């Protein structure tokens, strides 16, 4: 194998390492396999449709990636999603005329950040483990969503609101473009910005990070605030697509988001991960769901398949280790044979 000669070439080569990007390989394989079985799957309109669908979980998964790299879980995002979409639909008619559509989205994002800060404060300030704190907040956010909406589903048909999720640019769904943009932002944040480095450091070892002068509490607050922001954006887009908000939405949403992150290869041990891989995993899951329909899979068997796929995907580490061991043994054998 030739080593690339330029620094750029080396970076591209590193980025394309199949071990790190196995999600993409899996995605490509799935797509080709299903298209072979049902050619209509490969239709451009379908592909664009899948890409659009992946954004709703994918955007939330970006935030969760940062959280898991940091070494925590946020189990409250499903309930938070419901609360924020209910709040956004309730405030929309009052806010949008005043601050415009962009301002409205920013305000909802800030609200998400605020709730995230609340989660972070419980973890950083009261030293409640993230798992437990966010579990408790899940009940609270859910109750708040029901109270704010009076237990009723709400509708919003305003054209400006619908345009958030339902537009497209040259055929490509706007939500997907937003998803891509946020993925890029997330990657840059993680790999280039000091906050991203701090997140990885704490994820690796909180003790070492503290010794190096990093404020774990402030990083905690920042991480959970970010999770809140991404959840808020996902929530607004979902509300726009569904033309309203439902306080009962999003049960087990957090589990699927976490599964997406792990599917992308980010380790639950924390310290490292890739936002791009998470994004690919979101597309992979959306492709899988869509393929069930095209391949007429029995609805009950669908659950079994998704469970099996997740377990198989999560065991990637182990399988990769097995492959590595096998390779090393082959190399050993070759060395001994040539002596």
């Amino acid at each position: 194998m030739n080593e690339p000669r330029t620094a750029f070439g080396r970076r591209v080569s590193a980025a394309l390492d199949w071990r790190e990007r196995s999600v993409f390989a899996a995605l490509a394989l799935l797509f080709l396999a299903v298209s072979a079985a049902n050619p209509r799957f490969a239709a451009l309109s379908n592909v664009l449709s899948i890409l659009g669908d992946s954004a709703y979980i994918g955007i939330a998964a970006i935030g969760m990636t940062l959280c898991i790299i940091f070494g925590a879980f946020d189990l409250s995002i499903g309930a938070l999603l419901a609360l924020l979409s209910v709040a956004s639909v309730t405030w929309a008619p009052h806010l949008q005329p005043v601050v415009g559509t962009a301002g409205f989205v920013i305000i909802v994002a800030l609200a998400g950040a605020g709730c995230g800060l609340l989660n972070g404060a419980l973890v950083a300030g009261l030293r409640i483990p993230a798992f437990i704190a966010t579990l408790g907040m899940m009940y609270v956010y859910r109750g708040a969503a029901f109270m704010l909406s009076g237990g009723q589903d709400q509708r919003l048909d305003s054209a400006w609101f619908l345009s958030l999720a339902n537009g497209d640019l040259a055929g490509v769904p706007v939500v997907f473009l937003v998803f891509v943009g946020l993925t890029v932002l997330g990657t840059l944040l993680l790999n280039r910005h000091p906050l991203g480095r701090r997140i990885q450091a704490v994820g690796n070892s909180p003790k070492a990070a503290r010794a190096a002068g990093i404020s774990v509490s402030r990083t905690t607050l920042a991480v959970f605030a970010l999770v809140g922001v991404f959840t808020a954006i996902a929530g607004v887009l979902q509300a726009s697509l569904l033309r309203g908000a439902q306080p009962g939405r999003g049960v087990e949403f957090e589990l699927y988001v976490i599964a997406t992150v792990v599917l992308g290869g980010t380790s639950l041990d924390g310290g490292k991960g890739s936002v791009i891989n998470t994004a690919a995993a979101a597309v992979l899951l959306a492709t899988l769901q869509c393929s069930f329909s095209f391949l007429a899979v029995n609805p009950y068997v669908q659950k079994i398949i998704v469970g099996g796929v997740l377990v198989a995907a999560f065991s990637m580490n182990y399988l990769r280790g097995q492959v590595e061991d096998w390779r090393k043994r082959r190399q050993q054998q070759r060395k001994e044979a040539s002596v």
Partner: protein
Amino acid sequence: MMKTTGALAIVALVLATAGCGDSKSSSQQQIIGFSVYDMKYEFFQMMEKGTRERAKELGYGYQLHDQKSDELQMVSGCKSLINQGAAALIVSPIKPDALGAVVDAAQKAEIPVVINDIGGGGTPYHAIIISDNFGGGKLAGQYVVDKLGVGNGRNVAILKCEPSAIYAIRRGEGFKALMTSNGYTVVAELSAHSKTEEGYAKMKNVLAGTPDLVAVFCENDPMAVGAAQAVAEAGKTAQVLVIGFNADGVAIESIRAGTMAATVAQFPEQMGRISAELTDKLLKKQPLQFDDVSQREIFAPVKLITQENLSEASK
């Protein structure tokens, strides 16, 4: 080098494939796509059966999509059915209010949309088969009045479905309206979240608070079956009328055994068959007969099922 080449090859292959497929159905047989609320419930299993069998009898291909009680799935799945080249779309929606995106996509693809039960969300569907949930609840209430006479302040209770099941909530409202107008007191209205085990637990608490309860109406059969067991354990089967909704097989068994008094049948299989026939007419550009022209509604019957007429529950 090898890595990059390999990666580029895969990307090229994927890009070449994407866009190759033709989303318009070119084969002779037209496909009817049916997107259903959630196949884990017997009600929708029966509706699916009716839809599938009638569609195939009429000579159409058939494609099923299960929303699994998720609104996002509803939207993406319906769009998926359209992308598969469905000639027509039947939807039994988890969230009628969210149908806007679906109907828009169907209109763009110029295919007709038929809604089966739940609600149409005010969208420009072509037809909707709607069962009267409120009226069904009233039927249940009327049964209590027929059996027990005028209320005189006697206590009844209602166990409600998961709050997001808005159409099911109307059943309880119908029951409540009839009960209060006949002099009964609705002493408790608790949510058992559509679950059997919660129907059991909530019923126990209701009985604890109101030992002289005379009837309980559950907005679906799973909760009613659970509530019936709680009543039986308290030895009050003779005292408390337990009424469910949906005429699920499990409830029919309970009625036969005497633990439940009645349920309200909705005939989902028949509704499914009707939806397929409507779709057939729409595809052949034939006119439709509506029960309510302004809303393009076709009414599906509801019927009270008791121990006396169990055989009529077959859908």
